[in-house]
């Protein structure tokens, strides 16, 4: 069972079973790693903002760099109107990043490799952005589906396509992250098991692949967190600045 590359995605409960009526809300390894990620973020930011030195320490520098990084990303993609949503985007980015990164540790669990987790986040973003759009622009927000400068003949078709693309946003957002994480970890596991099965004689080639893949996966972990955050910013931009 341990050699099964999908075994690492198994969710099992830790501690007593918690049931709310008919719904199972037990604490699982997934919840544990979410907690670890959140706790790590808090710890990192606590030590990153503890001293108020003019010349920052390394941790402080990283914390301030990530703050500026997200701040610049938001102002570049969604403009100054998106400033109130900075804490949310920052939390989202840090959470996804830390979940991805902690998932890279051997024997750990990758929270974001589960479609339900990414789907809940994506759906939340989708619904929140839609609500923000309707609050800011009222029914005019529907003009998002009617792009300007399109010939009248093509307009119905384009509108239908726009609506479909809008509705598929949560799916694409969640599946992108989940599939990337799952595929990467499965691949790492497969190459790892090759190393074991080929032994000392032939195991070196998959081992080198494994090492290279680990580097690639760390990049992907960062990149997917970045993509998740920047797509959220772009959706937010659509809702805040209609027809820019």
């Amino acid at each position, binding site marked *: 069972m341990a050699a099964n590359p999908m075994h690492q995605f198994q969710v099992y409960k830790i501690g007593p079973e918690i049931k709310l009526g008919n719904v199972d809300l037990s604490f699982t390894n997934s919840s544990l790693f979410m907690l670890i990620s959140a706790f790590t973020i808090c710890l990192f930011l606590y030590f990153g*903002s503890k001293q108020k030195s003019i010349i920052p320490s390394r941790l402080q520098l990283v914390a301030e760099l990530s703050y500026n990084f997200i701040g610049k990303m938001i102002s570049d993609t969604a403009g100054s109107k998106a400033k109130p949503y900075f804490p949310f985007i920052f939390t989202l980015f840090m959470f996804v990043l830390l979940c991805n990164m902690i998932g890279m540790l051997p024997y750990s669990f990758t929270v974001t490799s589960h479609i339900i987790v990414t789907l809940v986040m994506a759906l939340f973003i989708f619904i929140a952005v839609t609500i923000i759009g309707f609050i800011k622009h009222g029914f005019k927000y529907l003009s998002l589906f009617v792009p300007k400068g399109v010939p009248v003949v093509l307009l119905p078709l384009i509108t239908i396509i726009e609506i479909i693309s809008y509705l598929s946003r949560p799916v694409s957002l969640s599946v992108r992250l989940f599939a990337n994480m799952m595929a990467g970890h499965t691949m790492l596991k497969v190459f790892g098991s090759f190393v074991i099965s080929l032994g000392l004689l032939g195991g070196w080639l998959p081992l080198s692949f494994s090492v290279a893949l680990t580097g690639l996966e760390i990049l992907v972990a960062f990149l997917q967190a970045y993509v998740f955050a920047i797509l959220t910013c772009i959706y937010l931009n659509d809702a805040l600045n209609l027809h820019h």
Partner: protein
Amino acid sequence: MRLKIPLVIFIYWFETLLFAAEAGMPQLDSKYWFSQSFWLILIFLLLYLSLSKFFIPKIKDNLDDREKKIKDNLDEAKKLSELAEKKNLDYKNEISNAKREVIKIISESKKLLDKNMSQKKEQFEKELEKEINKAEKEILDLKKGSSISINLIAEEISAKIIEDITGDKLNTSSIKASVAEVSKNKIGKYL
């Protein structure tokens, strides 16, 4: 019978789905979906609250503080450099002023010295002239006096010579007259 075949197919499909969830992708196992969603929302909410209420303002404060401090320091440095420039200018002005003063003092003292010197020179020249005049007068007096005494001596000598040669005493007035005549003609040669 008609219902049985779809039912069998459905059960088979459902079982394969279950099997897939068990052996294939644990992600599709819906058993813990609610639990995962619940814990995700709870933990994310807590993280969001702690970040937005506590950590992000702190980092922002740190960054703002730094920016302000750097700006303040830069302003102060600018001010100080301006001050230094001003001081430097003042110093240069002072030096040039001092140089001008020195030149003035030198020229003044030179003038004074020149004046003094010319005054002294003049005075000295005057005194010298006076002395010279005095000396010349004295010489003249002396000359006059000497011509008289020369005449006297010449009279005595000539009286004596004549007396020695002739053995006679000659009239003194005639000697005097002849000496006076000779000295009148010849004395200018020697005095």
